[in-house]
């Protein structure tokens, strides 16, 4: 029997708190799950630093990847199968792309990529087409199969319907992470009726559409995205941890470049610092490794690196105030920077503005935006309409986004009056902190 069609003798199931069970029948999928590149995702958390705000949010990218696979499996096996617009030969391709779509994520991806100027999507591509266990399995399906999987994930594959299953406004990726993140953070938002959504999805040549009768389920889904964004993804305390993490990496890189001798040598970081990271180096990096260094660096001689690591490990985060970057506020910021220097606190590491554009974005913005494919409703008469034109609820919240900037600072240092008492008092006054 051909490898691509090979089924396991007995179906394997993974227990899952979100989808109850994840079903695996295909040998290829089973083998992919067993690769070291996929297993590495166990050591990378889906929500990065969010666990410092919501202690339950320790779920891994592996569990999310399995979830996305399961949703796509249900769509193609239970909903699309047998429909004229669906090509059954694209089934395995869809499942593999769903399972592997996040394969290239690094530890605390967001800050990590920003500091070292990397892109996890490029690493996903490299892992799939490069010399890896994943690649060997995909090659057994067909010579051009790895390339096809990589194209679906990169959104360049010619079959747009397959692409839309894992990246569009209403895709398996979002459907899984909203529910999974809601479950593990414990917030009461983020829930919507996925069963219903899947049942009313219909394949079209370029993307899936939603039957009109499922509009209210879609509304719920859009609402849950809106609420999760403000409640979880954009939480100011999580952003504080992210700011500290970014500064640790900046500091370590800066120290390396200026010839500092680390007590705990950062072997895993050298190629990153030099900007010549190979796939092998990259795959060795995960959150366990990174946290190990942070803990070790608590014993460094450099006071900034030491302090920032202690803050991250022990959750002694920065506090924040709202910051609107008008001219007068910018002047205040410059004044604060000068005072920080006078107080002996380096403003490059301890006075940080974080903007809404610094975080990945997940709002529904339909209509005139040329660059986004909106959600389409299929009306009973066969007409296709954009969701926000049919739904008042979606129209009311879509695209309406507050931009937001926050100024982060170490309140504990500013309240420590053992040194530079008067300057710190001035700073506190400018930040409008109580004493």
């Amino acid at each position, binding site marked *: 029997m051909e490898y691509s069609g090979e089924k396991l003798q007995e179906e394997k199931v993974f227990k899952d708190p979100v989808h109850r069970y994840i079903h695996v029948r295909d040998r290829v999928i089973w083998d992919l799950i067993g690769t070291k590149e996929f297993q590495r995702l166990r050591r990378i958390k889906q929500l990065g630093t969010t666990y410092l705000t919501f202690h339950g949010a320790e779920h891994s990218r592996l569990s999310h990847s399995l979830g996305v696979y399961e949703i796509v499996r249900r769509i193609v096996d239970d909903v699309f199968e047998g429909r004229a617009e669906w090509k059954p030969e694209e089934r395995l391709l869809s499942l593999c792309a769903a399972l592997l779509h996040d394969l290239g994520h690094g530890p605390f991806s967001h800050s990590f*990529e*920003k500091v070292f*100027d990397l*892109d996890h*999507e490029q690493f996903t591509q490299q892992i799939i087409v490069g010399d890896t266990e994943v690649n060997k399995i995909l090659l057994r399906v067909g010579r051009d199969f790895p390339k096809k999987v990589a194209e679906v994930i*990169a*959104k*360049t594959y010619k079959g747009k319907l397959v692409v839309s299953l894992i990246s569009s406004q209403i895709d398996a990726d979002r459907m899984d992470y909203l529910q999974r993140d809601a479950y593990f953070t414990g917030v009461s938002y983020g829930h919507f009726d996925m069963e219903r959504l899947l049942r009313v999805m219909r394949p079209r040549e370029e993307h899936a559409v939603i039957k009109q009768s499922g509009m209210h389920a879609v509304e719920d889904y859009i609402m849950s995205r809106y609420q999760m964004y403000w409640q979880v993804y954009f939480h100011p305390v999580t952003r504080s941890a992210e700011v500290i993490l970014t500064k640790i990496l900046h500091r370590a890189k800066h120290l390396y470049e200026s010839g500092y001798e680390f007590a705990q040598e950062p072997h895993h970081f050298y190629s990153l610092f030099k900007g010549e990271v190979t796939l092998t180096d990259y795959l060795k990096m995960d959150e366990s490794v990174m946290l190990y260094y942070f803990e070790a660096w608590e014993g460094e001689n450099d006071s900034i690196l030491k302090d920032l690591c202690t803050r991250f490990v022990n959750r002694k985060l920065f506090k924040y105030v709202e910051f*609107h*970057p*008008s001219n007068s506020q910018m002047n205040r*910021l410059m004044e604060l920077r000068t005072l920080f220097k006078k107080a002996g606190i380096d403003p490059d590491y301890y006075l*940080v*503005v974080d*903007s*809404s*554009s610094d975080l*990945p*974005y997940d709002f529904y913005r339909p209509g*005139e935006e*040329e*660059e*986004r*494919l909106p959600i389409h409703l299929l009306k009973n008469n066969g007409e296709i309409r954009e969701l926000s034109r049919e739904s008042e609820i979606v129209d009311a919240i879509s695209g309406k*986004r507050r*931009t937001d*900037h926050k100024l982060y600072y170490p309140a504990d240092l500013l309240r420590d009056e053992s040194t530079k008492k008067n300057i710190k008092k001035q700073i506190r006054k400018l930040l409008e902190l109580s004493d």
Partner: protein
Amino acid sequence: MFKDHANIINAISTAGEISGRKKLQKIVYIAKKLSFPFHEKFQFHFYGPYSEELTLRIEELCEMGYLNEVREKKQAIINIVIR
């Protein structure tokens, strides 16, 4: 801190004004490829390279009062200008 915002303003003021959001996306993409110091992440999208981060920064800059987006009369093109 706002360096990425400043880079965008600099690019737009150098160009005078940029007509069309798509054009702006492509200009910044090419400039980045030519090693100008832009840090926005680009993805392959419907009309080629596109950066959500760039869209967001423009939105923030408009909100802050540094940029303005003006729709040309009876046209779909939106001009991005310094305020």
